[in-house]
């Protein structure tokens, strides 16, 4: 048995190599394991009867006709499951006083948003279950519908939950003066030469992952296996066990191939719990797969904030203070991290700038809409949008170039590590260099000259340039910081490395990919650490029976935290193998060098034993060091000390047709610093995808509810996920400042493009038409809104929906946080 091939020369480093992805082999040939592909003997299919009204008491439920329908095996109402369904978990009570009304998986007495489950039909086929949905006869007694946050927080407003005192779930405050991380904010504003205040709207978005959610549960005696299209099999297992009472050790959760998530699958879904409850009742395997309309209507949404932002500065443009007050739409219930999303943003509103004073307040507000929760960036896009928009407005007020204002106030490369007024220690970077490279990529000077020509000639198509210089907190997260924010779990990640007898390597990771390419990147990490070929490494993930511990994938954490755990596990393997090598080579451990996968005795050429040979020797264990257990496998858990802080400069050149309101991105360029790059192909792909989603928020996407609380953007006809023809070419680049807080030096890249791009696009459009009196345009920048902003003033107003019929709303008279000059 010769497991080891002769080596010729040292391999080139894998880190930094544009490896094509291992994952692709199955994805480009259709040999995939999406949850909905799964068929089990005797499997039954679920269809969910959903509320057609946003807010009502359920007065009667008659499902007799459903029961009689062909192929129907059972039907369950909320009343049937009321005693065993518990409440869906909210893991983030952001204040001790936070009001959590509880979140049933299926409504019992009252529905609080359109699409809420009211009955579940179980049938022998999917079509039989779906055919029976319309036979359910449910009567509703309507209640007043609460939709507008600014109305919902007023005294005497109608309530979403009548057992609560108000629609405010929580009031969260971060005040730098009180925390000792900055000066007194009120004093800073009182003494400032210039104060600029704006009300900005972060519209509601839908994650719109391409693979609809799907759940399969197989009961086996007391044991249950749950397959789900989820980002978080490990968290789901803990939470589902607590909700259903199925003991954690009797529940296995598997995330097979998962078709995108973007935060939208960072959830404990009602349907996951319902599948478990019904499989337990029936003792049979069940499957639920949503339609796209169900997905858009009932999967959690993202963003949805009204932001009141005040910035204070002196006449020379030195920033003096920032004050932010948010209304954050929770929707009807608190899901897994619903209340925490705006709090993740709380620490990022000051961006890359040296604000001496900062105050943040947020009200979480209940409305009769589907809950919000994590969506790519989760709190940080909202914060970055606010600060990068208000910096442009301040520049106008001061008569300064927007880039010069930024440059004057951002943290200099020599000042890292830098502790901000929000109390975060930014790790590394160089904003000036990234900005200079981005300006070159865009061809900034030539475009500014063209802008000037178009203005002078009164061209109907005007040109604008938008700037967004950003940072974000990534690598979620140091467990002690999460603890200080009352989050219900830690932020560590786990990895194991198993050295197989034939010299092949299994890497088990607690990070659960859904398109990010972990199998490839983790192989690169281990190939470099252990000196084994890239092809000899298999990465296992997404099954709690294989990967017993994990915190899963979100928040640009996988490489930073999960990859670091892999590196640490590899170090432990090497340390164990060193003992075996010393024994086999009859040398002292201290005299051994480890390089390119082999141990050799220093100064003795030709001596050597490879780590694969050691793996085989460990398997046999015939000749092993005295007292050492026969294994060189290792586990490691990595808990970061600090967040990592990717940064970058994004520039957008935008053409605006002043006659039609049509906007078109002329050129988009960005330079991101995401720390050490393990795989440039994957990094570039993540930036591209993030840009697409961030630009889509600026230009295309909005979840719109009509006056009755119906989602009018409930299909891909109405919810505009951009196609290839809707997006420009992206010119992307990188600077590299390694993150000091992890052994890889990576900072995280999954969310960067999505966080940075939105304000760059909006700033560009406003820059194009500012000379026409436009100071804000609400997202998405539909031609209608842009035209209104140019020709009718205001921010373009609400988007037309079925009942509102395009009422133009001038929001400039909305309340501001304090009496700052407009």
């Amino acid at each position, binding site marked *: 048995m010769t497991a080891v091939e002769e080596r010729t020369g040292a391999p080139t480093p894998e880190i930094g190599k*544009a*490896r*094509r*992805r*291992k*994952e*692709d*082999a199955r*994805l*480009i*040939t*259709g*040999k*995939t394991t*999406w949850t*909905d*592909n799964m068929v089990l003997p005797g499997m039954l299919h679920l269809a969910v009867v959903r509320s057609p009204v946003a807010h009502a008491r359920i007065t009667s439920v008659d499902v007799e006709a459903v029961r009689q329908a062909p192929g129907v095996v059972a039907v369950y109402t909320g009343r049937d499951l009321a005693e065993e369904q518990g409440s869906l978990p909210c893991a983030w009570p952001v204040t001790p006083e936070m009001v959590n009304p509880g979140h049933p998986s299926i409504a019992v007495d009252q529905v609080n948003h359109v699409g809420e489950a009211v009955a579940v039909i179980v049938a022998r086929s*999917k*079509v039989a279950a779906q055919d029976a949905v319309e036979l359910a006869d449910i009567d509703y007694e309507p209640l007043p519908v609460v939709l507008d946050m600014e109305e919902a927080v007023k005294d005497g407003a109608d309530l979403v939950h009548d057992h609560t005192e108000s629609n405010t779930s929580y009031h969260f405050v971060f005040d730098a003066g009180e925390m000792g991380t900055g000066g007194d904010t009120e004093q800073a504003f009182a003494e400032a030469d210039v104060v600029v205040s704006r009300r900005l709207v972060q519209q509601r978005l839908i994650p*719109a*992952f*391409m*693979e609809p959610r799907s759940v399969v549960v197989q009961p086996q005696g007391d044991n249950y296996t749950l397959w789900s299209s989820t980002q978080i099999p490990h968290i789901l297992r803990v939470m589902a066990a607590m909700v259903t009472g199925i003991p954690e050790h009797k529940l296995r959760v598997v995330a097979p191939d998962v*078709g*995108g998530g*973007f935060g939208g699958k960072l959830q404990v879904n009602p349907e996951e719990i319902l599948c478990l409850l019904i499989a337990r009742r029936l003792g049979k395997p069940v499957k639920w797969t949503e*339609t*796209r*309309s169900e997905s858009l209507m009932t999967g959690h949404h993202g963003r949805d904030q009204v932001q009141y932002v005040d910035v204070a500065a002196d006449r020379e443009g030195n920033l003096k203070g920032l004050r932010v007050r948010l209304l954050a739409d929770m929707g009807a219930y608190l899901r897994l991290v619903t209340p925490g999303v705006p709090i993740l943003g709380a620490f990022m509103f000051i961006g890359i700038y040296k604000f001496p004073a900062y105050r943040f307040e947020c009200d979480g507000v209940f409305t009769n809409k589907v809950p919000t929760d994590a969506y790519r960036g989760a709190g940080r896009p909202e914060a970055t949008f606010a600060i990068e928009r208000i910096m442009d407005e301040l520049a106008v007020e001061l008569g300064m170039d927007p880039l010069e204002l930024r440059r004057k106030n951002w943290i200099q490369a020599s000042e890292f590590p830098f502790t901000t007024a929000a109390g975060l220690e930014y790790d590394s970077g160089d904003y000036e260099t990234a900005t200079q490279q981005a300006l070159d990529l865009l061809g900034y000077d030539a475009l500014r000259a063209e802008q000037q020509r178009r203005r002078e000639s009164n061209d109907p198509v005007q040109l604008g340039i938008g700037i967004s210089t950003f940072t974000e907190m990534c690598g979620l997260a140091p467990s002690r910081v999460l603890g200080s924010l009352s989050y219900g779990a830690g932020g560590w990640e786990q990895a194991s490395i198993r050295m197989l007898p034939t010299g092949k390597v299994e890497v088990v990771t607690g990070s659960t990919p*859904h*398109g*990010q390419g972990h199998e*490839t990147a983790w192989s690169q990490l281990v190939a470099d650490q252990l000196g084994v070929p*890239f*092809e000899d490494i298999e990465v296992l993930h997404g099954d709690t029976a294989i990967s017993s511990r994990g915190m899963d994938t979100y928040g640009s954490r996988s490489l930073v935290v999960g990859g670091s755990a892999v590196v640490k596990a590899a170090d432990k393997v090497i340390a164990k193998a060193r003992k075996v090598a010393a024994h086999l080579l009859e040398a002292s451990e201290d005299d051994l060098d480890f390089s390119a996968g082999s141990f050799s005795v220093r100064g003795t050429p030709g001596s050597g034993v490879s780590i694969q040979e050691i793996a085989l020797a460990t398997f046999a264990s015939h000749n092993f060091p005295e007292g050492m257990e026969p294994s060189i496998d290792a586990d490691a858990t990595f808990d970061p000390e600090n967040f990592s802080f990717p940064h970058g400069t994004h520039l957008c050149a935008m053409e605006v047709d002043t006659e039609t309101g049509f906007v078109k991105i002329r050129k988009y360029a960005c330079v991101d610093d995401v720390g050490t790059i393990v795989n*440039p*192909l*994957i990094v*570039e*792909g993540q930036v*591209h*995808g*993030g*840009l*697409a*989603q961030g630009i889509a928020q600026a230009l295309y996407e909005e979840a719109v509810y009509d006056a009755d609380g119906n989602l009018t953007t409930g*299909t*891909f*006809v109405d919810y505009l*996920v951009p*196609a*290839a*023809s*809707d*997006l420009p*070419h*992206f*010119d992307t*680049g990188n600077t590299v400042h390694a993150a000091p807080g992890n052994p890889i030096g990576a900072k995280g890249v999954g969310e960067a*493009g999505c966080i940075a791009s939105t304000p760059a696009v909006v700033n560009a459009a406003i820059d194009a038409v500012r000379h026409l009196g436009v100071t804000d345009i609400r997202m998405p920048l539909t031609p209608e809104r842009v035209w209104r902003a140019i020709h009718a003033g205001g921010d373009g107003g609400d988007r037309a929906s079925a009942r509102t019929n395009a009422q133009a709303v001038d929001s400039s008279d909305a309340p501001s946080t304090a009496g700052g000059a407009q």
Partner: protein
Amino acid sequence: MTRISVRVDGASYDDDVEPRTLLVHYLREQLGKVGTVVGCDTSNCGACTVHLDGEAVKSCTVFAVQADGAEVTTIEGVGQDGLHPVQKAFHEMHGLQCGYCTPGMIMASIDLLGENPDPSDDEVREGIEGNLCRCTGYQNIVRAVRHAAAEMRGDGSGPPTDGHAAPAQVDTAAAPHVVGQA
């Protein structure tokens, strides 16, 4: 129930189907051809794209009975003599991330290249606008389609860059296990 005869990926099937059964559901549920997936219910996303008698169709927009007597090719059959150049190019150019849209995107791209063997960036973008991808931002899909076009033309001209900044440094050695699978 209606009897249909259909060839799918080179194999013949005779089956009874309900008249309302969509081709995609017939493929997935009766034939087990789960490489073709469903992404929406309004024919917007294109994830279910297959070839019906050589032309790309969204198989959620075709009844199974309409495929009677026809030849259907899915992602599982398109590379039966090894990977199709478009499959290879999606891998080479990192034209996929989660991979859910990929079967439909590849089938639509093959159809596009049949009509236009040398499309520009804009022509690719317009040609695949019936297929949605949420992960890639499309740029590497465009690269992949043009890369495949150059290979399929075989004239050695390679894909032009249209003056855009060069793509990320590209290591041209494909991951061996994918090549090996061909």
